[in-house]
């Protein structure tokens, strides 16, 4: 969490004991390397095929979100069952779109964690079976690392050293990436993930699930300064907290109802969103400046939030920082980012064998 020096950093070499490092396996053929990516860490069953480091030949996403909508959140058992049904059709569809066969693949990359264990095991089982039959390397990928690598898909010039946010329904992390495969987690949420806060507030407002896009849309017509919601600016370092803000929204709604005042949903959404985004942007910029890093990224489902992009762009421009964020299709969970992370792993010679397993609590560093 607070490793200030290189000695405090953990690398993937330390994290995965089953991996072995081989000398340069592909040499000059890196641009032709075909990696099949599989991602099943939450409620989306994803398969993708990547040629080289950024040529996405197919990016298939089969979501079970509709099945979860009535429960107001992802139900792990429902998600796991959906993955068993969807993973093989997703792989077949990716191959069809890329006009390739499984036997063309040079490696199989799969998310092994963090995530829902019942969901992860499905993708991992499929990937292990494929790598074993095809006799190609199996590349175990950290989901959070994959979110960072999503930036390579749109920005060939992206690269470490960089500082950025990974913000989604499951995660809120401020990360320093000094080099490929090296990460330092500067800050994390102490309670809800940012996306979770969006989902919960959307539920209070009756806007349905998932809440992020609904609030983003509603906020466009609202005044972000209408209600002064609290910013949880924690004194210690770069950690985040959203539970106080969530409660403040509830309190506000209750107070308005008691006083018989009308609630303008647009204003609530805009003001709530501003409170979330403000803290995230401020801390990211501060981290980049204090580490002397000039590249900033924003990844994860919440990275497609329009206000986060707007404010982050403005603040980065003001502070002379280069900002990268993936296009919307690579912000939410997808397997192209997993394949991309796998590509960089492969060319660094990192391999695993069929004894790898899902790790729902896998850490980035």
């Amino acid at each position, binding site marked *: 969490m607070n490793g200030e020096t290189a000695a405090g950093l953990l690398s993937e070499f330390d994290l995965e004991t089953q991996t072995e490092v081989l000398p340069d396996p592909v040499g000059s053929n890196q641009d032709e390397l075909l990696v099949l990516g599989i991602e099943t860490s939450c409620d989306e069953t994803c398969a993708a095929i990547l040629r080289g480091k950024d040529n996405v030949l197919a990016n298939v996403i089969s979501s079970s979100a509709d099945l979860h909508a009535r429960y107001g959140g992802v139900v792990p058992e429902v998600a796991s069952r959906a993955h068993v049904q969807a993973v093989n059709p997703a792989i*077949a569809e990716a191959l069809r779109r890329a006009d390739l066969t499984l036997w063309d693949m040079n490696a199989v990359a799969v998310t092994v964690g963090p995530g829902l264990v019942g969901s992860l*095991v499905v993708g991992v*089982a499929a990937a292990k079976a494929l790598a074993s039959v095809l006799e190609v390397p199996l590349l175990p990928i950290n989901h959070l690392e994959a979110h960072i690598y999503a930036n390579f898909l749109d920005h060939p010039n992206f690269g470490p050293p960089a500082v950025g946010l990974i913000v989604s329904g499951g995660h809120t992390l401020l990360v320093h990436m000094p080099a490929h495969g090296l990460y330092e987690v500067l800050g994390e949420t102490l309670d809800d993930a940012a996306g979770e806060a969006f989902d919960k507030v959307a539920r209070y407002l009756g806007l349905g699930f998932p809440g992020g896009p609904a609030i983003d849309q509603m906020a466009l017509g609202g005044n972000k300064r209408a209600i002064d919601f609290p910013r949880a600016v924690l004194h210690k370092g770069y950690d985040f907290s959203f539970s106080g803000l969530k409660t403040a929204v509830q309190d506000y709604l209750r107070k308005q109802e008691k006083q018989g005042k009308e609630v303008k949903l647009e204003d609530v959404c805009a003001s709530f969103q501003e409170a979330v985004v403000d803290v995230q942007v401020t801390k990211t910029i501060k981290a980049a400046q204090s580490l002397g890093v000039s590249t900033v990224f924003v990844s994860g489902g919440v990275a497609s939030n329009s206000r986060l992009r707007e404010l982050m762009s403005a603040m980065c421009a003001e502070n002379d920082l280069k900002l990268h964020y993936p296009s919307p299709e690579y912000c939410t969970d997808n397997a192209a980012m997993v394949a991309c992370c796998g590509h960089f792993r492969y060319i660094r010679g990192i391999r695993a064998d069929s004894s790898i397993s899902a790790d729902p609590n896998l850490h980035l560093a």
Partner: protein
Amino acid sequence: MLVLGIETSTPAASVTIGSEQGIIASSLVTRGAGPGDFLLPAIEFLMEQSGLSYRNLSAIAVGLGPGLFTGMRVGVATAKTLAQALSVPIVGASSLDLLAFDVRYSDKLICPVFDAKRKEVFFAFYRQVPGGITRESSYMVGSPERLMAEIQGSGEDFLLVGNGALLYRDPLERVDKVEFGSMAYAFPRAASLVELALPRLFMEDYDRLFDIEPHYMRRSDAEINWERSMQRKNR
């Protein structure tokens, strides 16, 4: 016809390679890291030891449960993906059927019982017929007391097998006319899966790759709770 059988729906993860000429290689592990870790290394080991490769396989057979959710998913996802990659047919079988088939040499009513956790068991009733077994009940999930009531109600002699029968032996033993199978038959095995799959494969009675699913028998808690809350609302 070389068949790879995968059965991981109970704490016993089991893999067998066999054909109509017999079982070639088989393994079973009931503890350790779990089917997710065991399965692929076990398949690779059996292939290597028997001098076979994936390209020799003609079909994949898989035990569908009922059983432990994660085990069933690992087994089914692995089996489906192998069948997809190798472009070979897949057939699924109930894991209760497999265990009943193993102990079919009895005139009693045969009842495989799996521990379903949460103080419940999965079970079904079978009878020996020439060349195999026939199932005489639906697949059921319920308390050991419910199983006892079913047994008493039928008035027949019973052979109870499986880890659920052994776990609840104490209450179940109080019922008359009940005999228990040995611990050698505590779990379904991939060897009987291969044996049961072969006739279906010869008749080209395959399952559809994208449709085959674990035999969950229970809905998720969230679904059950949601339905209850809807019923309350509608009342």
